[in-house]
Every structure is written in C-alpha cells, then in structure tokens.
C-alpha cells in the first residue's frame, strides 16, 4: 500500500511497461511453430486450419500437441516444450495414437542425439556402450509416458456427444491437471465441420410444441461456440481447429474453363481471376456465422503437385500454407516426414 502521506506514491506504477512485457511474454508465450510461425499466436486465439483432404491439417495439430506436451527440461536436457496439457477432440475419429508417439519419439531422439556426447570415448559394441544404449531407451520410455499423460483425448460420434463433452470438460480437465500439476494450454479440434451433413439434414419436428428449439446445424454450432467461450473465460487456451473442405472444386473448374475458352486469348487476367475463383469455391465457407465470429485467425493449407526428395525421408509431397485472416501475402512450403513437419526454404 502506498503511503497516505505521500499522494505522489499513488500514481507511481506497479511496474514499468518493459517489466510487464517481460512478465507477460514469459507467462503467456507466443507460439511460433512452423507452419504457424508467421503470426504470434497466444492463449485466447482461435485458429482455424482449413484445407482440402489431404493437406496435412491433422499433422499441424499433432505437431502443436507434441510441442505442448514435451517438457521444457528433463534431467538437465533442454527439450524446449511447453510442458502443459492438451485437450484433443477427435470428431473425425481418425486420430492415430501411434503417429503421435512416433513424432514424440523422433523429437526426443533428436534432442538426445544432439545434446548427448554419446559414444565419446566409448567404443561401439563394448559393454559400456550397450549399457548406455539400454539406459537411454528406458530414459526415452519414461519421458514418453510422462508426455503422453499430458495428452487428454476424447472421441465424439455426433454433435450431441461433442456438446456433452464440452460441458463436462471443465471438471475433467480440473481433476486431470490437479493430478499432474500442470495447466492446460491447447484445445485441439479435428475437425470442426465433421457433422455438417448430418446436422444440416435435421428437420424441425412436425409434432410437439413449437417452443422447442430446432436442432439445426446453426443452433448446434451456436451452443458449441457458447460452451467453448464459457470454458475459455475460466481457462485461457489457444484453440486450434481443423476444417475440411467439403465442396469439390471440379464442377466450378469446368464452368470456368468453358468461359475461358469462349473468351479465349483476349486476356490472361481472366484466367488468373478464375484461378482465384476456384480457390474461393474450394474454401467456400459452410460454417455458421457463430463459428466464423469465434475464429480470430485463419490459415489455408493445400497440397502442391511438387515433391521434395532427400536421403532421410525419401520423396514427400510439398504442402503450402497461407494466412488469410489476417491476410499475409506469403506462401510457405512445408513437408511432413516421419519426425513431423519441416519447412522448405
């Protein structure tokens, strides 16, 4: 408490802007994880990752999950993770835990390989070497399990299960994070539009009273967003949601091509705009406005027809990413190897 005799003390700040920035940045650090590294993402943001299948959407989510559950430091070795919990909603029912553990193992091995002065003065094949290998593997396993415990997963087969899960998420997350002693940082959803066709078809019941709310896709989505907003108020999180493209660009392509051939060589500009048209159709928004207003950042992913080739990974398709909200006119290229996503420069 400032001294009552000295009024000037009342207007002295608690801390300087610099000190505050330093404090906030360490408490709520930015996520700069490729291919999401162009914009500083932090808790409270809702990022939509849109793209046609396959465009490595789930891989981006898994990469984020691995970054979050890895420890900052483990027995003196720096892993550079966040050491926080992740909640993963699997609405597509295609999550493969073996893929998650594969990326995790790769990351762990990578860090151990680069920091360990392994084999230094120890001859390969000797007893000492074998012991070291054995100890390293048990070390791996322990760390792997510790990381996997921070991964909280739920699978939902319809929107009602999803809403039910959102409603019980708070209590479950609390018990879980108290048991582990770490907070939750990420909420991952794969993928948000999974039940679009199913919910869209639900019709208002002709019987019963009209006071009942119609279970349309829009109403369900509003409820889902409301539940998530409520949760985010109590527990600030970074939300990453993938969204599949469900409209095929082909039908519009043929139309566009037809117009191009009738207008022919007059200007190539037409063609360029029509390419944009295709893209617009491909990423056509089908989510209700409630969700659109909830999203703060949006990135588009796409697979290109190019490939990258190296000795370690073999031939891999190249994916492209572009921020559309806020719009950045930069296209990044990345590929997905056994150890996860890596950028191509």
């Amino acid at each position, binding site marked *: 408490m400032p001294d009552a005799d000295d009024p000037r003390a009342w207007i002295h700040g608690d801390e300087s802007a610099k000190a505050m920035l330093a404090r906030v940045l360490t408490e709520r650090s930015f996520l700069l994880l490729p291919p999401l590294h162009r914009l500083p993402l932090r808790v409270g943001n809702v990022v939509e990752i849109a793209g046609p299948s396959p465009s490595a959407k789930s891989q981006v989510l898994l990469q984020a999950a691995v970054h979050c559950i890895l420890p900052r430091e483990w027995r003196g070795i720096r892993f550079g993770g966040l050491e926080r919990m992740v909640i993963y909603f699997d609405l597509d029912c295609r999550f493969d835990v073996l893929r998650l553990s594969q990326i995790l193992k790769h990351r762990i091995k990578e860090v151990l390989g680069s920091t360990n002065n392994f084999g230094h003065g120890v001859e390969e094949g000797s007893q000492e070497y074998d012991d070291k290998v054995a100890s390293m593997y048990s070390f791996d396993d322990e760390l792997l399990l510790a990381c996997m415990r921070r991964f909280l997963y739920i699978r939902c087969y319809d929107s009602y299960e999803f809403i039910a899960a959102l409603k019980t998420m708070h209590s479950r997350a609390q018990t879980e994070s108290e048991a582990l002693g770490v907070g939750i940082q990420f909420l991952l959803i794969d993928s948000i539009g999974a039940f679009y066709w199913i919910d869209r*078809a639900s019709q208002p019941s002709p019987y019963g009273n009209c006071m009942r709310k119609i279970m349309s896709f829009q109403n369900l989505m509003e409820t889902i967003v409301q539940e998530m907003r409520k949760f985010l108020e109590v527990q600030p999180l970074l939300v990453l949601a993938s969204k599949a493209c469900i409209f095929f660009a082909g039908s519009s392509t043929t139309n566009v091509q037809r117009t191009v051939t009738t207008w022919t060589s007059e200007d190539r500009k037409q063609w360029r705009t029509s390419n944009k048209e295709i893209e617009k159709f491909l990423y056509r928004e089908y989510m209700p406005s409630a969700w659109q207003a909830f999203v703060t950042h949006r990135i588009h992913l796409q697979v290109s027809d190019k490939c990258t080739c190296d000795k370690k990974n073999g031939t891999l398709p190249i994916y492209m990413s572009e921020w559309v909200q806020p719009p950045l006119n930069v296209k990044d290229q990345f590929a997905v190897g056994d150890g996860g996503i890596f950028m191509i420069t």
Partner: protein
Amino acid sequence: MEERGRAEASREELERLIDGGTPYKFAVASQVPMPPTRNPRSAIHAKSPITEEVGEEDVGMEEVSVAIDRQQPPWLNGVELLEDAKWNKHVLPTGCEGIDILLGGGLREGQLTEIVGPSSSGKTQVCLCSALGVADLNLGVVLFLDTCNSFSSHRIAHMVNSQSDTLVKEGKEGRLKRIMSSILCHSVFDIFELMDVLHQLECKLKHQVKSSGNRIRLLIVDSISSLITPILGGKNSQGRLMMITTGILLKKIANEYNLSVLVTNHMVGGEGGSLKPALGESWKNIPHVRLVLSRDQGSNICNVSILKHTIIASGRAAKFVIDN
C-alpha cells in the same frame, strides 16, 4: 456348386450370429495372444472419480457426475490410448505380400481402409485374399458384405488349392471347410439394408464383448460405392447425410469393437480425363487409409500406392501379383 452351397450356409451362420445367441458352430482357437478384451468405454467407468475427502453434502453431486460420465464417451489420456492400441488393435495380414509390406503388416484393427481402383484392377481379389488370410490363420470371423455379387467361394477355393505348400497337417477338404466356415457372406443391395446390417452388428457386438475366440475381426464391404453413388447428386443433401452416417458408423464399429473394416470404391473420370476416386470431397475425410490399385492390361502384376495413411507418408508404392 458345392462351394455355393457353403456360402449359403455361411449366410445362415451370419443370421445366427446376428440374431440368435447360439454359440458358433466351428469354434476356432485364436493364435494371437489375447488379453481380456477391454472396452475403452467400460475402462473409464471402472475408475470411480469419487475421492475420499468428499463431504456428506457433496456425495449427491458426485453421484450425478458419475452418472453423467457413464452417459458420455470416455476421456482418455495418451497412455491409455497407447495401451488400447497395443492390446486391442492388432494388424491383420491381407495375404498380398506387396500390400502387407507397404502397410507395415496389413490392415489395422480399429481403422477403415479403402481400396480404390478402376474396374478389374484387383479390388475384389484383395478383399477375397484378406478374407482368406484371416480365416486361414484362425484369427477370427470375416464378414463379407457383398453389394454386387462379387463374392465367389469358387475363387477362394481356387486360391486355397493353389497354395498347396502349407497343406501338411490337415487334408485339403478339412482346411477348405475350416476356412469357408469362418467367412460369412451377406448380400446387401441398398444403403438402407447396409445400415440395417451395421446396426444389428453393432448391437450384437455390444452384447458379446467377452467371447474373444471367434469374434468378427474383419468386415469387408465390396463395393461400398455401388451403394452410395445412386443416392448422391442433386441439390438434396439426404444422400450425403446417409453417406457420412454410414462412414461414421463403420468407424465407430471399427474403433469400439476392435475390428478392421475394408471397403472398395470405384473411380470416375475427373477434370482433364484423369481418373479420381468416386464419392467426392466429403467422403475423403472418412477412411483412415486409402490405397489406389492399378493394373496394366493383360498383366497380372498390380501396382498399389498410398493416397492417405495415418502414419506412412502418401505416395509410397508397391507391386504384387494376382493370379487370374
């Protein structure tokens, strides 16, 4: 003719398996070490979240939360998921060497694998081969849902007879009988019938979790696209609703009851005359694994490549031989 008769018989078996509680006639012993089948849903329920230091007045609240937990899908952590994958999700060999090597063993339980390819590229052959493989190794029962009369017990019998090297212990007849009796074939001619069968199957599986000896391990739908294509198209979204519902139901059955699902899909001409898998953009989000088959005219070597896989990078390819 005789084999046809057996296929009919296995249809009856299917009905018995779905409707009645009569124990399966041809009991087969599992070779895979089977821990007690653990339903992930029941695993969570066993763990009561009631803690010791709950006050009297909180007991009612705790009961409510336990009741709610029972109603909803379970929350699992990564360690529990790994355990489930280790104990309940095995790999079933397809019997086609090239595919097995490509997929790292074969078809994973809990996953939906889709085979796409133009006509006569070997899709049905792969289905029959996997059915034969699973039945031959006594892994469990195969349910073959046949939508376009592609199932041929004659072809399976031919395949059994051609692999004569393993016939040391048991006679040809006995082995054939054993294999045929664990393949159940059921004809399905429209999407409603398919959904009906799947719901019955789910119901049946829900009540026989304990018996692990002759449980269904592999569900084949050959071909799923011939059921879905007629209902797609137009402005009405009912067709897509049924397609996605079927897809989610297949994945649910695969996941909850640890069986592997194999479906086939045909190809249609896309832009520029190139072939692409049928069923469109929305269906792409359904299968875990997509494989493309292709075969040159007159050759008996099939090319298979990965369009999509949960672990393996897409684009890898292999070859395998099928006999005509």
